Structures are given as C-alpha cells and as structure tokens.
C-alpha cells in the first residue's frame, strides 16, 4: 500500500518549502493527535511499565512482590544455558517464516491480479485463514496431523506418501517445520492482499512500454513491477517480522507437548517460564529482552529500508 509514498515522492522536493508553512507547533497538533496519545497513555503505558518494573523485582511463586532484585533477573536470563538455543530458534523461525511468506505472497498476489473467471471466489478463499483465529487454525493442523486420529496423517498414509502415521508434532524438527508451515499459511492472506493492493498502483503504460521493447516476462517483473511494489513490500515485511517474532499460539500448540527447550522460541520460552516455573520476575526480564530485540530489529529495519519516507 505504500507504493503511494514512492509515487508521491517526486512532488516531495518542491513541496518541502511549502510544507514548512504548515507547521503550527505542538498546541495546534494536539486536538488531532491528542486522542491517540490519551488512549496510549491510558491503556498501554501502565502495563508496559509494570512489565519492566516486574523485571527488576523478586517475585514469589504465588506472584507476591518480595522487594527489589536489581538486575539479578537479567543476570539469570543472560546466564541461562537454554538462551542460545532459544535465540537461535527464534532467528530461524522469524527469517524462514517471513521469507517464505513473502515469496509465496508475491507469486500469489501476481496470480490473483490476473483476470480469470471465479477470481473473486479464489480471493475470498484466500482471506479465510486471516479471518479465522490462529489458535483454531493451528489446532486443526495439530489434530489433523495427530498420528492416531489425524485425518491429514491418515490421508498421507492412504495416498502412499507415508507407510504408517507419523508423529509430526512429537519430534523437534518436524514439529518446528510444521509450525513454520502453519505460520506461513496464516501470514499469507494479509501479505498477499497488501501486495495485491500495491500491484494496482503499477502503471499500465510502463508495462505496455516494456512489452513494446520486447522485454521478457521476468525482466518486466524485476525491472518494473518489483520496484513499484517496494513500498508495499516494506510494510508487509515489517508487520510480519513483528507478528511472527511475537507469535505464541502456533508454537505453543504444535511444539507444546515436546519436552525440553529444543523447540522453543523466545515467546514460548517466556510462556514456559511463566506456566511451569512460575517465575513472573524471570518471565518479565525475558519479556523486556524480547521487547528490546524487537525494537532494535524494527529500528534497524526502518533505518535501512525506510518503509515510510514520511517518517
């Protein structure tokens, strides 16, 4: 969707001077941005601050505050022998899910942009995973691939791909693989639609011109379509990074029954620390770490990719 900023760009340099006149100072802005600030300060700041505060406290198993812990919780977190594996999993998880999602969505958006009878129905079908709750979609995959009563597992056996039902959700590597597939599956609708919207902004005449010049399909795509999509792509990737990084339900359901921490990402690890170890303080410190990592990644991303020139 932010193919628009790109298009608006040529107008930006001459317009810059004029825009300066538009600056009326903060008081003039307040009525417009005030409600947003009010909502954020009223609702978001307190729990976020509470999480950070808790990360510096010593909290009992029952959740009672026992006094300051300084940075002891963070010391625990950074010396945790599970942390390297968990961070590695997180990186693999985010990189693989986001890149697969984007690649498939690019192709899918291209396809959904082509005219053919029944296109609207196909577009509607693609939206369904977006509308359904991630928890339920994941649950269907989980039970569908259960080695005993899973329909998908039975199907794989019936068509001869498997000799006997396989415990996809019970071993680290296949479970992580399955979780990645599910995450890609539920991320595609949003991404494909964002890109599809971006495709509408590709100028018709540029495509015609390329055709006239005898450019091949791939060259046209890479030299004309893709640059136009850059803005939409940048937004889609950013939102996906944040969401995939913070995703809990998919991994919790699919890898939840696997013992140990071999299949955990930072989010599921936080969840286990909270649920099984009952350490609110350590979980808060991990959450702060998680938050810091996302901010750094997003800040770096925004700096390098500049998804919104306006920022």
């Amino acid at each position: 969707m932010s193919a628009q900023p790109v298009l608006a760009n040529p107008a930006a340099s001459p317009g810059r001077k004029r825009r300066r006149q538009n600056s009326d100072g903060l008081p003039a802005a307040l009525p417009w941005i005030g409600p947003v600030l009010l909502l954020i300060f009223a609702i978001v700041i307190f729990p976020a601050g509470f999480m950070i505060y808790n990360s510096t406290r010593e909290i009992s198993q029952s959740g009672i505050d026992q006094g300051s812990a300084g940075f002891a919780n963070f010391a625990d977190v950074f010396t945790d022998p599970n942390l390297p594996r968990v961070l590695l999993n997180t990186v693999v998880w985010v990189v693989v899910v986001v890149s697969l999602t984007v690649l498939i969505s690019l192709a899918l958006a291209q396809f959904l942009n082509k005219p053919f009878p029944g296109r609207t129905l196909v577009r509607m079908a693609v939206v369904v995973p977006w509308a359904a709750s991630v928890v339920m979609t994941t649950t269907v995959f989980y039970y569908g691939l259960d080695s005993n009563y899973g329909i998908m597992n039975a199907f794989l056996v019936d068509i001869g791909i498997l000799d006997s039902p396989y415990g996809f959700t019970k071993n680290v590597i296949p479970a992580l693989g399955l979780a990645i597939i599910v995450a890609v599956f539920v991320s595609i609708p949003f991404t494909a639609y964002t890109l599809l919207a971006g495709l509408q902004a590709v100028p018709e005449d540029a495509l015609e011109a390329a055709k006239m010049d005898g450019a091949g399909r791939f060259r046209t795509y890479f030299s004309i379509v893709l640059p136009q999509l850059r803005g939409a792509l940048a937004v889609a990737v950013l939102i996906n990074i944040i969401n995939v990084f913070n995703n809990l339900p998919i991994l919790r359901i699919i890898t939840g029954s696997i013992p140990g921490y071999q299949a955990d990402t930072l989010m599921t690890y936080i969840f286990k620390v909270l649920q099984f170890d009952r350490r609110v303080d350590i979980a808060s410190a991990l959450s702060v770490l998680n938050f810091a990592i996302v901010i750094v990644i997003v800040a770096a991303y925004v700096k390098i990719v500049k998804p919104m020139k306006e920022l």
Partner: protein
Amino acid sequence: MATIAPGPATLPPAQARRKRYGSDQVSGRRMGLRMAIGAVVALVFLLPYVIMLVGSLKTRSEILAVPPAYFPTEGLQWSNYVTMWDTPETPLPYNLVSTIIIAVFATLLVLLVATPAAYYTARFRFPGKTVFLFLVIVTQMLQPAVLTAGLFREMLVLGINDTWLAMILINAAFNLSFALWIMHSFFAAIPKEIDEAAQLDGAGKLTVMFRVNLPLVWPGIVTAVIFTFVSSWNEFAASLVIMSTAENQPLSVALTKFIGQYATSWQYVFGVSIVAIIPVIILFALIEKRLIGGLTAGAVK
C-alpha cells in the same frame, strides 16, 4: 486536478482495469490453466476449514475414532449447530454478543482516534512528530500476552474490570498503531495541491479532511477496519484474565470451556470456530471491492 470533488479522479484507473480485463488476449487454454490453479489455491486455503466443518458435523465419538473416518458415518450432525447454543459449559449466545460488541466498538474507536492523527501527521509538521510516530509503532511491538498482569491491575484501578468497555479500550489501544500507520501512508500519497485548493476556497482543516481526503483513502480505511476487527474478534490473552464473568467473555475464551480435564467437546469447538469465521467473511465480502478497486485512487498522480 484541484477540484474538491475527487470522484472523477478515481475513475480512469478503474476503467482501465476493466478494459484490460475484457480485452486481455489470453487463449482459452491459458484461462483454463488459471482457473485450475485458482481452484488449487482456493482448496489449499480452505482445506483446514473444511476439516473443521466436517469435524463439527461429527458425533463426539466419531471425532475420536481411530483410525479416523474422512466423513461422518452416522449422518451429518447439523444438530450440533443447534445444541451448541445451549450447552452447560458456556452461555454461547452471550459470548457471541460480547464478541460482536467488543469488536465493533473497538474498530469504531480506532477509526475515530486514528484517522485525524493519521491525517495530521501526514499533512503537517510539528515538533515531536517523529517521537509521536515512533511511540505509536512501539505499541505494535508489545505482546499483550506478557502484559496481562498489568492490564488486569489497571482495569481494576479504572473500575472497569470485567466490562466490555475494558476490552474495547484495550483492543483499540493495541491496534491503533497499524491503523494509524496505514492511513498515514494513504493520506501522504494524496497530492497536497488538492488540500491547498480547498483551503483557498475557505474550507477549514476538518472540512478538508472529511470532504476532500477521506473519500480518497477508502482503501486505507478498509484495511484498517479489517485489521482491527479481526484482531479484536480473536483477542484472547487479555480477555481471559479481564473478563471473569462467563456471560461477558468473548468467543475466543468461551471456546476453551469446551476443553475439559478428561474430555473435550471437539464438535462444539469446531462448530463455534466456523460460526466465528462467518461474520468476518461477511464484513470482508462487503468491503473487499473498496480495498482493491479504490486503491488505485490513492495512486493517482
């Protein structure tokens, strides 16, 4: 170009698209191939939900059969869709009403507060604008699941714990950033000359926003609406701790009530999930055309 009525500006690309659709010289064979691919794509994306639907039409023991049967063998249990409204586990009709009210009002609230802010930040400069936009993005990065303890405490202090209002505010606050962001980019893409012409005619900022800009950013609004609605509709972590009365709980929490210590009523879990998808699909069907069709409008030079 600088007319107040933006209508005509939106037309050409749409027409162009329609023309292309009609005059595209693709062979029948290629068209057939596209339809085939389209069918496969639709099948892939619908498959889990078909499984869900079939599951919701089985009896409890059929769902747990080993080895599983692809289709119900004891007839389709459409009655599950009737009985699920009156189960002892959860007052489902109330849960549906709660979900609708929370999602609708959260979405409206987001539009109400995010639209002016998106417009203003896209059009005007003011000190602290970058800080403001960054603050907004940061809210997107916080995971509600790790904030529930603070949210619960906060709602107690505000005295609105266990009310719809609490969840409306929470959903609105945590989905604000995306809405503001996406609308910001759409407003920014509208040529400023349009505004300036309107201002010369003596229109105030509010009038310019509503009368001139809003009609041009429909795709952005639609995207923001779908986003906010879908994520409020499916929100779970905060609702679980804040909504303690069974009648107030949204469907996402109500679903977990069918999962007992020793047995789970999967037929209801699947049935409720199917029902929960429908309103979102209806919403999408109603506004899908505006998302794609209107989008070209924002891109006019």
